[in-house]
């Protein structure tokens, strides 16, 4: 039912979602932590900026990212100069785009989770000789499990369905930047509803199974040792 192109697109989609989710979680952690701990006045501005990727339509965001990351863009040109190459129309570019696009969904749950943990247990850890990094890793992180779970699920799912940023920034190159969402869109536009339904259904069923599994695992994990 699914064409080889569609399968390739699915594969690219999964790869993109996985890579950008992992990277985003790692990179957003210090930001979310800082936001949850600081009393600095500038915090609110940073929080607002983090939310901004949401307010632009994805295609428009993609357009500006293209300007920014493309060969003529300020970031792209610098990358070009240092030999990495600009990011337009490449998988790495998509990863960057997806990360920016999903940033708010990751930072917010993490920040909330860190804030909800409070200071008491971190103080306790400090009195037990844990350094700041140590107590972050061994106390704050495990207690923020729920937040990490939510962040990962939202970022992953959001990247699966991403379209606007990707088509603009990625250029829909088969095998490299053509993801499932673009393939479905094209099927719909080409009035090939059969293929569209098939691919959409595959994506939905796959996601449903994956999400159900993940939620079930998470639930089992929660039954012990999570703060009430």
């Amino acid at each position, binding site marked *: 039912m699914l064409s080889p192109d569609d399968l390739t697109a699915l594969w690219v989609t999964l790869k993109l979602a996985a890579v950008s989710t992992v990277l985003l979680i790692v990179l957003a952690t210090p930001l979310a932590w800082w936001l949850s701990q600081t009393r600095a006045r500038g915090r609110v501005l940073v929080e607002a900026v983090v939310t901004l990727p949401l307010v632009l339509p994805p295609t428009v965001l993609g357009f500006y990212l293209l300007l920014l990351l*493309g060969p003529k863009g300020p970031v792209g040109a610098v990358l070009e100069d240092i030999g990495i190459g600009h990011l337009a129309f490449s998988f790495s570019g998509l990863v960057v785009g997806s990360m920016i696009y999903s940033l708010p969904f990751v930072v917010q749950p993490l920040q909330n989770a860190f804030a909800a943990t409070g200071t008491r247990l971190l103080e306790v850890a400090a009195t037990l000789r844990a350094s700041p990094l140590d107590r972050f890793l061994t106390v704050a992180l495990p207690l923020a499990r729920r937040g990490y779970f939510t962040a990962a699920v939202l970022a992953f799912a959001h990247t699966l369905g991403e379209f606007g940023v990707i088509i603009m920034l990625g250029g829909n190159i088969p095998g490299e930047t053509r993801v499932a969402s673009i393939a479905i869109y094209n099927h719909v536009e080409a009035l090939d509803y059969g293929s569209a339904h098939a691919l959409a259904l595959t994506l939905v069923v796959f996601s449903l199974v994956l999400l159900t599994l993940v939620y079930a695992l998470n639930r089992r994990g929660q039954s012990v040792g999570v703060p009430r």
Partner: protein
Amino acid sequence: DIRVAVAANFTATLEALAAVYEPASGNRLVVSPGATGALYSQIANAAPFDVLLAADELRPRKLIDQGMAVAGTEFVYARGIPVLWSPQPDLIDEEASVLRSGRFRYLAIAEPRTAPYGAAARSVLEALALWDTLERRQQLVRGSSVAQTHSQVAGGAADLGFVALAQVQTAEGIPGSYWIPPPELYAPLTQGAVLLSSARARSAARHFLRWLQTDAEAAAIIEAAGYRRD
């Protein structure tokens, strides 16, 4: 009011037309741009439009077949002209030899399956026996519409691309460098208009279509915008 669903690439031209038509007729055009495929789906689901100005002839015909549009009201209101274009002044010469040389990183086209300009671009590249090579080298980037393709080229992310002449033509000519492929390399980009069934009884809609089809001033505006009318 006449509710016009229009292929996105024709929006600007339609606005120029409206500036002439509205004062003359006393009717107002309510313009809803969109991708032709999306407009088709919407009309099939009873979208409140009177007239469809599509980017191809296929979708109007299908609507007629399904009884969603009035048979006999369809006509070609414009023919698009694809152009290989780059904002860089000397990238493209008369023979478009840059295509063969491959001295570029990305060539942008619209998605051939859904955008007529994309299909034309593909035909041209196939006629030049370049399609497979470019595809294999992953040098082809596809926008979901020709407008996206234009953005990608204009912004410099892609070095050159097949866009609509209407997009690059200005009163002062065409900036940068360009090549207009000979018409025999691609199927004509006929854009069809049709009256939708829900507006069967709306004389204003019929009036607008007739004006668009026959008025000389309208034809002039369309041609000036970069389309042909034959």
